[in-house]
């Protein structure tokens, strides 16, 4: 099985030319620096657009066209929903976890490379709710952190898991490993790289537009690294109204 990375990919020189033409300001990093700086942005609780390698086939973003975040942050879920994806939600996001660490963090010890299996957060990472918190209703209930990974833990402690494997997506695996090195946490929030109603991004231009039209703070496309504060404010888009709601 070759994974679901079956879509288009761009060469580094092509990415640079396309981003330049779109008016983007970026630096070109070595592989190591790219991983290091992206992991640091995640640890600083920044929303990161991650466009690397071939696009996934099918509805799930699996680390090729993903928006990533720090799952330990109690505000990450709300921030991603409201400021990045522009959707209301009673659901938290899904985690990507290093395959070798999955059993330590979730009650499952197997492969789930396509984000299809659901498992509870491991007991030692859960937080017990008070009676008062349990009586809350709907979204209020969801807003109470119930584990050390609040952004990816559902009200019943479950999470829809993607295991990340060094052989099928080495760069994504390296990124999560670097994040673990900084934080001790081998898990990141992974949601598809789009806003509500928009198809997942395909080209470097799509990624740049979505970056400029949302509050994604850092964008990586191949070895190009973009910071929101360095971009020309005139290129910011009123993006969320560009797509019909689903």
């Amino acid at each position: 099985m070759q994974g679901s990375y079956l879509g288009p990919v761009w060469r580094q020189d092509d990415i640079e030319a396309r981003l330049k033409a779109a008016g983007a300001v970026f630096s070109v990093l070595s592989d190591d620096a790219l991983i290091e700086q992206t992991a640091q942005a995640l640890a600083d609780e920044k929303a990161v657009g991650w466009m690397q390698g071939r696009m996934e086939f099918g509805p799930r973003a699996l680390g090729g066209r993903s928006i990533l975040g720090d799952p330990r942050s109690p505000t990450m879920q709300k921030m991603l929903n409201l400021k990045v994806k522009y959707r209301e939600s009673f659901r938290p996001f899904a985690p990507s976890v290093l395959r070798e660490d999955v059993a330590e963090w979730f009650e499952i010890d197997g492969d789930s490379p396509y984000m299809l299996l659901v498992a509870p957060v491991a007991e030692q990472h859960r937080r017990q709710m008070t009676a008062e918190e349990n009586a809350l209703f709907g979204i209020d209930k969801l807003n109470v952190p119930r584990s050390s990974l609040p952004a990816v833990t559902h009200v019943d402690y479950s999470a829809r898991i993607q295991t990340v494997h060094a052989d099928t997506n080495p760069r994504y695996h390296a990124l999560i490993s670097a994040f673990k090195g900084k934080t001790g946490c081998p898990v990141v929030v992974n949601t598809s790289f789009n806003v509500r109603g928009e198809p997942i991004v395909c080209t470097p231009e799509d990624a740049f537009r979505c970056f400029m039209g949302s509050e994604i703070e850092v964008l990586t496309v191949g070895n190009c690294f973009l910071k929101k504060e360095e971009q020309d404010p005139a290129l910011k888009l009123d993006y969320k109204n560009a797509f019909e709601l689903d």
Partner: protein
Amino acid sequence: MKILGLSALYHDSAAALIEDGRIIAAAQEERFTRKKHDAAFPRLAIEYCLAEAGCGLNDIDFVVFYDKPFLKFERLLETYMSFAPRGFSSFKTAIPVWLKEKLFQKDLLAKEFKKFAKDFDWMGKMLFTEHHLSHAASAFFPSPFQDAAVLTMDGVGEWTTTSLAMGAGNSLEIHKELHFPHSLGLLYSAVTYYTGFKVNSGEYKVMGLAPYGEPKYAGLILDKIVDVKADGSFHLDQSYFDYCTGLTMTNDTFADVFGQPVRQADKDPLTQFHMDMAASIQAVTEHIVLKLARSIRQETGARNLCLAGGVALNCVAFSRRPAMPAVPWAPPWPAITSTRTNPAPLPAAARMPCRARIWGRCGGKTTSKRG
């Protein structure tokens, strides 16, 4: 040997290219047109696949389409015949659309193909496969198993709503089928409609709501609406539904059972009742799926299980291990949380000897051991 697989003109058009059993490229048309769920002829996706494979259309040996238009038309006609004259209003609406678009899908496709490449011998190279077989193939052939049972559960494919296929090496055969209107996907969609969400896209919201509720109505659903047999096969009591004849999913009898009218999304708030309904349909789904999985294991002795189709990929249902008799394998391509599935265009094409088998089946009717 190069095979181009296509899914088009329904929802989420896509193309895939397979060379000597290896998937070279696959993509959905929406990514290129930037129009979500784009159902148009996948012109750009095909161009991408050809470019990725470094070949032209003339190098393609076969083009496989995921569906057989005529089987669907037959279902539509037979449904309306058996429910006449109650079904006339939806018959009036649906039939002209089918006549215009679906029945002549092959012609429509031919026209699109001609527009795409005038001189290519499309009809000589075109193969059609049955919807459920496409689903089953999309799970089994890329799976790590040499042999496996394949459970496909879908809203409605052609006639089939639930099927068991057995795969071994390069062969894949349907062993059993449940037919429309007995469909777990449609039951899930009925509750989706009843709780005020959009059918065919709101199913994932119902699944997401379920953990906020208690499955208080699961007993009632199993008691009145769906009759589950010991082997997991089931029968839906049609007196609660309106999808066979009307233009809505459920009727007043359905609402009376649970004591509340259909929620109007624009004015009625979501309450604990709706969360309990969501938890209940989720519990019923899991109950049926686990029963099916266990009976498949018992009956076939298969150690491996592949899952396909929208309902089968309701991910919560399949994570209830160790209740599941085998660790299931499912492909990433169908939309997993709703009955809105994307029958991957990979299927028939994934391994060459299988193509011949599937082609051989196209003329005949799939035999069903269970009605």
